[in-house]
């Protein structure tokens, strides 16, 4: 069964450093998303991406964040200058172009900012 994959599974970085989180969505999916989950809290939407551009973003997704689909398979989230409060699980999700909003989530990347 096709699945969303994410790398790395765990990333430790120093405050102020740049990190890139990588995702490989399901191959025939056209909508891509990033969500985050601070430990013990709910899942929060960051950004959605369709047709090579951002279609929606939340207040969390400020100028420190960017997304890119550098080739036909990868979807990346970059945090330019990490802050302590960026420590969280980051989930990538994807879905097809049909009317159903069934989003499939990856296993997540745990980001720890020291």
């Amino acid at each position: 069964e096709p699945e969303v994959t994410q790398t790395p599974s765990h990333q430790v970085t120093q405050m102020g450093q740049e990190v890139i989180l990588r995702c490989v969505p399901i191959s025939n999916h056209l909508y891509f998303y990033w969500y985050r989950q601070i430990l013990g809290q709910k899942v929060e939407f960051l950004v959605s991406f369709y047709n090579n551009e951002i279609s929606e973003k939340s207040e969390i997704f400020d100028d420190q964040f960017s997304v890119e689909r550098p080739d036909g398979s990868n979807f990346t989230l970059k945090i330019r200058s990490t802050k302590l409060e960026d420590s969280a699980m980051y989930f990538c999700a994807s879905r097809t172009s049909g009317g159903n909003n069934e989003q499939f989530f990856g296993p997540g990347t745990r980001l720890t900012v020291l």
Partner: protein
Amino acid sequence: QQQVKQSPQSLIVQKGGISIINCAYENTAFDYFPWYQQFPGKGPALLIAIRPDVSEKKEGRFTISFNKSAKQFSLHIMDSQPGDSATYFCAASSGAGNMLTFGGGTRLMVKP
């Protein structure tokens, strides 16, 4: 307006019992209501979903009940099993391709 409120925060049920988790929303534009199951260290996995044109949807032991006028929906897990022990999130979205707004989550423990 965008919030989805979920209750209870935690739930303990005996094996074979019925687990009931409730969610309420304000945004009448929401038109898709999924439930996700999450095990520790894993990503959320879609369990079952409903659209507001039906009042109930059943898949195996899992049933969503939807009350459009009250803007509430609930997940019922029949014959709950220890393997159902996980965190459950309700969510809602509007339009195609739109962001999911998640509830706060319910940590379910099913005792053997």
